[in-house]
């Protein structure tokens, strides 16, 4: 199966290890992965901040870049949500775009991806995965099948972490108050690793945990699923 990777601008720029993990994982599962180099950004930041007109050409560009692929996979619920739910309101008809967990479970039909990750993990389901895409507990099903992984349920998991794109800057104090409660819930689990399907949320919660020297590491779901006994995940310094 030929699959195009939409890395998202954030992951491409700040978290390349996540995109490399998606490639590794999908290839292990028999997909042929392509990364069209003309891709940039889905336009979510512009759209959500009130710059709808600026988002339109980015939505068109997305369709141009990916229109010849049957499947586009993004390691982000919120970027996939932007493409699927918002791009059609901007006058484009985007190609079929999936968030990673959806693609694995719904399209490839797998929950056990043969991963090995011997760590205590808790999972934040992210708002747009839950409410825009309806990803449900697919990420949890994938994590439960990972060998060696000790999955601890996150209290109040469906509550927003306070990121919200430019909200985190425009309403920084309210965002931080939300983050404080999310971090309390994460720390209550005693997990070593906080995972999510979105590097934006992970950057936010992880940024707070790092500031507090909390001793919990953010790791994208793709990196956990890509990890195997033969080639285990290693923390990038």
């Amino acid at each position, binding site marked *: 199966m030929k699959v195009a990777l939409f*890395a998202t*601008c954030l*992951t*491409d*720029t*700040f*978290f*390349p290890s996540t*995109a*490399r993990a998606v490639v590794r994982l999908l290839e292990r599962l028999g997909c042929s992965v392509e*990364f069209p*180099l*003309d891709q*940039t*950004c889905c336009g979510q*930041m*512009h*759209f*959500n*901040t*009130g*710059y*709808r007109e*600026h988002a339109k*050409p*980015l939505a068109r*560009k997305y369709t141009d870049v990916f229109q010849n692929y049957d499947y586009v996979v993004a390691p982000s619920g919120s970027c996939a949500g932007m493409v699927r739910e918002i791009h059609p309101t901007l006058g484009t008809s985007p190609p079929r775009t999936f968030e990673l967990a959806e693609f694995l479970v719904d399209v490839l039909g797998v929950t056990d991806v043969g991963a090995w990750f011997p760590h205590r993990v808790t999972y934040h389901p992210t*708002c*747009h995965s*839950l*409410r*825009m895409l309806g990803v449900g507990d697919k990420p949890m099903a994938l994590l439960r099948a990972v060998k060696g992984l000790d999955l601890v349920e996150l209290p109040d998991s*469906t*509550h*927003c972490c*306070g990121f*919200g*794109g430019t*909200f*985190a*800057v*425009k*309403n*920084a*104090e*309210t*965002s*931080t*108050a*939300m*983050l404080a409660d999310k971090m309390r819930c994460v720390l209550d689990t005693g997990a070593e690793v906080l995972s999510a399907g979105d590097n934006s949320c992970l*950057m*936010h919660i*992880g*940024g*707070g945990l*790092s*500031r507090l020297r909390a001793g919990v590491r953010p790791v994208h779901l793709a990196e956990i699923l890509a990890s195997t006994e033969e080639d285990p995940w290693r923390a*990038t*310094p």
Partner: protein
Amino acid sequence: MARNPVTWLGSPTFPKAAHKALADTQLRQNLRKATGTIRARRAAAVAEMTDWEMLRVAGEQIKDDVLARLDTLLVQLEESVTARGGVVHWARDAEEANRIVLDLCRAQNAAEVVKVKSMATAEIGLNEALEAGGVHAIETDLAELIVQLGDDRPSHILVPAIHRNRSEIREIFQRRMGVEVSDEPADLAEAARVYLREKFLTTKVAISGANFAVADTGSIVVLESEGNGRMCLTLPETLITVMGIEKLVPTWQDLEVFLQLLPRSSTAERMNPYTSVWTGVTPGDGPQQFHLVLIDNGRTQTLEDSIGRQALRCIRCSACLNVCPVYERTGGQSYGSVYPGPIGAILTPQLVGDMHDKQAASLPFASSLCGACFEVCPVRIDIPSVLTHLRAEVVEAKGRTAESVAMSAAAWIFASASRYEKAQKAGSLARFLAKDGKITSLPWPGSKWTSSRDVPAPPQESFRTWWRKNRG
């Protein structure tokens, strides 16, 4: 035109108001407890219903139909109410509505009036207008009474005193009623009961809002939990009801949908405790004079906006407030309006109708767009979509700003993969600002982020660089 009192004069913008509210630990504690409790109860009440999603769709469709036929339905309502002995008044804005109500009170020589909890009268600042005209309005809803006696502002649609705990309420009652009372809920309720009972029996004019008005019969419906509303609606000689023009349903059959949706969404009850319905005037039974004041106050201009108009579907249940992570932390007063929370963030700016108003224009940004509000809304108002729609209006009204210049530049960069890649490479130089793989301090506006969060150091090699080297 006079300013719309839907926002409180002199209120700071949302981030400034939130700054103060977030530091109030008592407020934070009160809200966490109250919203957490009601959230869980609502979820349980809704989970019992196998047809909840169908009910939501029905609620949405009935309200959309009403909004599409508002002109004819309103005329039908006027005819029905008049035929049953009521008098209908039309008010373009708050000022007109307040004048109509004041004149009606004066015609009865009423120095005091009792009130049923009502958002419409709070929206138009009726109590203040009556006071200025020499008529004292007494709130009879327990939470409204707490707000009124505390010289306070409401902070929630359903529970306007949600920001107060029982020891704070005890203090207010002792100070204003001159009674000794414990902080036990039963004792507090008894003190309010004694205080209010005398008012119900001696006051000749009552003022209410309306949850629904049935166009084909002219029946008005009020839902409440305490029975105090029922007292106001039945004991006085004159009843004045102030109602937003969007509160219509076409027929009694449509009411059935909302009498299921509203209680479960607002108080998590299966059935509403006190549902009062009256149709005009009934000789020898209840108020012998009935006036219905229909207010526009920004609704017609809201109706003109094809995306924004869905805010007029709102049935004031408060479910969106109770699930909102922003509301839970900042409280309702930070929104500077009687309509706080997610619905306030979309309704208030539209009723104000001026995106140059800094306070109103700050409200659509008071959301992380998490979507919890849309998920619970009984009439399926897509609040996140309206928020981004209104944000675009604010951006347009503001014109050229530092932000708009930066956004244009970013859009220009994203429009071309080669420009994007160059920017990425230049940006990765920020890794030299990093220590131990993280950046702890950035200049403004990045400082807003780094005030509480580290930024990971950008890696030397982006994913696309890696791809080109290894796969390209």
